[in-house]
């Protein structure tokens, strides 16, 4: 992650910016919206290991002087699905990409809840996103031309 941020620094023009957009480390809630009402069906059990690693990577490149944090935004994001099949596909992709244990239990719970109603309904997964705006600083820290992490940079970051 640190390496990817440094590579972004390399390809950015002077004064350029990184926009780091990703889910906030918070469990997403899955609900059913029906007839103007929303009923919570379950809360996902995501691991936040990668999210915390990404936060540490941002802190590190900022601490080392590659970027300055210009803005941090946080906002809600909804994913609206019509069918359990769509929910299953999304959950499967989500679990695979992030190495989670299966959320099939949640899909089954939604399926059961949908069986009990006749009115048209939609499945809603909701969770906050964060957007970090990082401004490129120059000159790049010493040793920046070498690919890969510099342990000197790491020590400097921790010393601040």
């Amino acid at each position, binding site marked *: 992650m640190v390496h990817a941020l440094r590579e972004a620094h390399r390809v950015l*023009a002077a004064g350029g910016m*990184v*926009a780091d*957009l990703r889910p906030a480390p918070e469990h997403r809630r899955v609900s059913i919206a029906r007839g103007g009402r929303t009923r919570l069906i379950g809360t996902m059990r995501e691991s936040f290991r990668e999210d915390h690693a990404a936060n540490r990577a941002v802190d590190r490149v900022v601490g080392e002087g590659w970027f300055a944090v210009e*803005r941090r935004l946080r906002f809600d994001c909804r*994913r609206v699905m019509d069918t359990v099949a769509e929910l299953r596909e999304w959950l499967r992709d989500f679990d695979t990409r992030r190495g989670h244990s299966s959320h099939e239990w949640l899909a089954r719970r939604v399926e059961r809840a949908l069986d009990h109603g006749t009115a048209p309904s939609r499945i809603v997964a909701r969770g906050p996103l964060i957007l970090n705006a990082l401004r490129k600083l120059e000159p790049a820290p010493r040793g920046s031309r070498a690919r890969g992490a510099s342990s000197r940079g790491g020590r400097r970051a921790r010393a601040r």
Partner: protein
Amino acid sequence: MTYVVDLERREVRALARIAPWRGRRVIELGCGDGRLTLRLAALGARVLAIDPDAECIRAARLALPERFADRVRYRVGRAGRLNARAESYDLAVFSWAL
């Protein structure tokens, strides 16, 4: 898939708050199927969108609307080793990719 992400377009509004996008050279890392790429193009950016998944890139190319064809390019690649010249972009977007 018929699902809709970010119905209220808060993502786009947030992006518009942090920078002007019109005419900017943008490299998007982790573009997936190009959902966010098209939103960046709609903001006026010229985007090179990269993802390590060749299947995603193929799908994104197929779904690219004609009106964005001159502004969006998709390429298979990795964020850690960009095949791009130094200082050639104004913005780098990590799209759920960091």
